[in-house]
């Protein structure tokens, strides 16, 4: 896993919905917001955003208890916030990857 030398990201809020859904608002620099990370995971050092190629960014500030509950079984959607608190990108929404062509037997 190639750790990038970037400042740690700051989680602005976690929003847990019904049906095991969670939204994570992450404040990040604009260039990182465009990078479109797919998922959020956690290891012994804490949570990080990752994409399918293994690239990841550490999250600097997190609530361990909230993450333990959230990362268990919830489906995460990551919103990137800019420095004004505006949502600049919504991973998992406009970044839904086209599914494999044979996904439904086509």
């Amino acid at each position, binding site marked *: 896993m190639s750790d990038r030398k970037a400042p740690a990201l700051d989680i*602005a*809020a976690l929003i*847990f919905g019904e049906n095991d859904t969670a939204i994570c608002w992450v404040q990040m620099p604009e260039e990182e917001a465009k990078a479109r990370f797919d998922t959020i995971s956690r290891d012994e050092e804490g949570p990080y955003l990752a994409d399918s190629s293994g690239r990841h960014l550490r999250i600097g500030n997190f609530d361990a208890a*909230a993450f333990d509950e959230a990362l268990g079984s919830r489906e995460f959607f990551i919103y990137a916030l800019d420095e004004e608190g*505006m949502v600049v990108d919504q991973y*998992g929404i406009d970044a839904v990857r086209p599914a494999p062509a044979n*996904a439904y037997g086509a």
Partner: protein
Amino acid sequence: MQQGEIVVGTVRGMRNGKYVVVRRDGSTIDVAFDGNASPLIGGDVIGRVTYGDFGEARMTLRKSILDVVLEGKVQIFPMGMRPDLTARALAKMLARAKSAVIAPGAGVSIERSPVSRDPDLAWAMSAFQPEAERLSIALNVIDVKAVAKAQWQPAALRDLALPADIEGNRRTMNDLARLLRSGFHPDCNRMVENHTGNREISVNFVLPYSPFSGALGFARDVARMDLGTFPAVRLSISESRRISSARYVALALAHNRLGAGLGIQADVGGSPRAAHMAACFADAAAALAFLAAGGRREAIEEYALLKEASLRFGLDRATGALREGVLEEGTARALRAALATVIPEAATPKQIVSEAAKIARRTALPASRFSGVQAPTEQEAAAAEQAALKIGRDLRDAPMDAVRRMARLYRKDIAALVYEHRGNEAASARLVAFGAAHVPMRMDFVFEEETARLPVHADAAVARATEVISNRDRLARRILARRPAEDDAIEFGEPLPGL
């Protein structure tokens, strides 16, 4: 797949008249789309899946995950090194969302739910929620019962107030803290935002009723009675909470409903007369909604009597002038007009709100009454005197038999509150602290007997609150000084001090 589960995926084609949606994990689901919008093949879709009578999956397209998530109950954990940014993002999110009840959750979290578990609050919200949505007003109503039980400290209050605090300053939090520390005095807290030269008004939060007042405390507050007067009302606690909740929820609609024209907001906090007009509207709307829902007519008649009597009990005998805010809240004429209005039981929220706006414009006192010394006219003073005789009993010189009879009514009221709060230490402690502010003269023994069995809880916030309410003048100032000052409006985007 469960009923109500959120689906995020891409439409890959059609099969048997249904859209084939491939989810992020590669699984597929065949769905029919409700509503006017249908997806394009290859487009990304978001929605909540439901199943019809024959097991067919159905979805309605939504713009974002957030829209779907906010349709249900959510738990929000504000975090981050920049709480002002979190506040702004949450405020923007909630301003676009539909009305909801907000309560403190576990830890520092906030629970937001579209429906309240409190039956009185749920009724009041259902009475006006459709109209709030039509007027694009997001009502963030605070679940006072949950707050009463919560271990709130200033930091926790900040988190509770944050979603409403788009202003980026501390006024909302300070307002909420003051209201909670003054015994959960009900309020509708608005903000005025100066944005590109326009003044935009929106509602920060609604504190619908005080869970520690009971029916008698509510009546005393409405009529401005002191502790030496006993309110002779038959209102139940539930009725008083419904009237109070409906009033403050309706008050949150006032700025949009009382404007000079379509899309023009009324600055209802801008002048005493505008505040009076809003109060007339809110009380008329609450009365009409209460009656349309089959509520007791006598309850509204008592409420109108209490309002009439407020011009007698709210009079400063030394100066002959009404105390601050009494004339603004003198809405008896609007309540009488609401009682005279024939409103069908199946009246829609829109009909109720429209009728209330007409009543407010017809019955509100003229602006000239609010300039200079505010005092009742001779006719109003005579009516207030009559109302005060009907609805208030003087405890100072009452014979002991009469005091005992009234004490039985008070015991019933306070016993119901004790029963409600006895299961939670924090709520019990707050009942002892704040309920003490409503103990009628010569009835301290009733309050002490009824609250003696409540668990004792050492809460620093309650200890501070007890200190505040032990100073009655200071408590009164806290309650009265709840109108935002004009200079609280700030320019949009102004940085927070100290950042």
